[in-house]
């Protein structure tokens, strides 16, 4: 008898792929901005934005704020709730693995 794959497995895979994409995007943004704007730079032309060096502001503060908003939206809207299944009642035994 063929059974259907549990919907929670599907939704978990979908969310894991999206999260990995968000991680990659954040990494590319932060590292490229910080490296191009902030590495081996003379301090004479260094600008401060709200007290942060400009490369920290655009390469860390802004993406960090964006990621916080994205995480809130992801948690509130995108993640699908699902049934985790029933637990074994008497957990003092050795479980299914024996």
């Amino acid at each position, binding site marked *: 008898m063929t059974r259907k794959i549990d919907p929670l497995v599907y939704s978990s895979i979908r969310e894991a792929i999206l999260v990995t994409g968000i991680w990659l995007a954040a990494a590319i943004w932060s590292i490229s901005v910080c490296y191009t704007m902030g590495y081996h730079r003379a301090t004479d032309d260094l600008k401060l934005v709200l*007290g942060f060096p400009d490369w920290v502001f655009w390469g860390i503060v802004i993406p960090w704020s964006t990621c916080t908003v994205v995480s809130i939206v992801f948690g509130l809207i995108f993640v699908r709730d699902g049934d985790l299944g029933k637990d074994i009642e008497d957990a003092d035994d050795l479980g299914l693995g024996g």
Partner: protein
Amino acid sequence: MNALTQFVTASNILAADAAAPPSAGWGAMTMLILFIAGSMCIGVFANMTTQKGGFMKGFFLGNRGLGAWALALTATIQSGGTFMGFPSLVYSHGWIVALWIGSYMVVPITGFGILGKRLAQLSRRTGAITVPDLFRTRFNSPALGFTCTLFILLYLSFMMFAQFKAGAIVIQLAWPNGGELSLSEDAVSVSETRYHIGLIVFAVTVVGYTLMGGFLAAVWTDLFQSLLMFVGVVILLVASLNAAGGLENATRVSVANTGPGFATGPGFIADGSSHEFLPLSLAISFFVVWIWGGVGAPAGLVRLMASQNTSVIRRSIYLLSIYNMGIYLPLIVICVCGRALIPSLDGKTDQIIPRMAIMTTSHWPGGSFVAGLILAAPFGAVMATVSSYLVVLSSGVVRDIYQRFIAPNADRNQLRRAAWGTMIVAGLISVAVSWYPVTYLQAFIVFSTSGAAATFLVPALMACYWRRATTAGIFASMISGAMTVLVLYLIGILNLLPHQAIGAATGFRPWYLWGFDPLIWGILVSGTSGILISLMTMPMDEELLSRMFDEQPEAP
């Protein structure tokens, strides 16, 4: 230029105030005593809560009842290092540490979004209490479960021994009128007796409340310290910005106090050598290390297994996102202010948070207690970390060794005695090992964290998402990941290859192959061998796979 000179002058005046190490006063010790008392109360309360149901699930997994706040603020990789090692790096190397820690912007979403739901489901389907339990049942292999247990015991022992030392040092520095604020290795030699008293107090406290309340005591204390840490950071941020005359002033003065490298990459190096703290290869590495190291950490995996339902996991993502934003960026700002206000710490850079706490609140009414509250945060962080390791360590011994091989029919009382015995023995060994403290505290933690992640990350992903994964593939993945990290650390420690002038300047350094952190190579090797060996071996039994991946018929 005039403005800069003015700031430098102001900084020198404040620096004169900061020249002598200030005393922690009675406030710090009072707050620590209150914190210890609070933790004991949490232990008693957790003990009452875990009385219902089976002992194993209650004591080691909190009856899978973890709520969103507890999961969010305790499941990731915060530890004593958040208040100790990290501020020291900002003070030493400047703004570049913002990039070093930058990946924490996605830690909440990756920590819960990649494995959270599926691991929680799988742990219920397998009836797993521990991580080895889960692997053993998912792949129907007692040998695999036992191998997991050995790896976990090895890594967590290393991490726990190191943390005991840190806990003792916090008590030592909080000693009233002691004039000691260093968390560094050489602080131990200044007052050995205080260190030993601190070690015993720390051990009795942490073993005591974990023994009473098990997993829940560890989690609730962790939650308590996380909230305390947040309050402490907010207070210290306001006080520091006020004292430094704003962030712009602080940045300019700190650059004047150090050099241009403090505000640019790859970071300031005090001795002016060609050493690079964060070259591009390591900047990329840390975006991998913090993220995937957190996802694969065994203590974190256990907490995901204990989550109540998917809604809890979902809410944890945004709670932790807001929390992280409120902790890490402010800590960087505080330490930049610290470099402006205290130009030099004579090598004891890990003094920066306690020094700032005492210095900026000394003129406040009840300032000593506010400083104490801030100082209690690292103590709580260390205590919570040790407590969670004790639970995982003890569950490994009781569930995966005692119950499986020695007493399969053990009743509740026998299991409880075994758990208590394990924790007491682990505490005694930790005290003995830390009595004459090991050097390279942080290095032990870093090695164990990398090793654990390289061992468990890929196998956990394969167990959760890949139907074609086989027992042999998981074995190969675990062992090759662990060996890769171990070999790269050994090459670095034993100086088998020429010195590399990158990264943090400690004696306990790995070999950075092509400039990248060992964990990256560990994950790559672990993934490649896991996939190849799985494809070369026979697929797992379809009935077992169906139980793990497919919809299950309703029980009659």
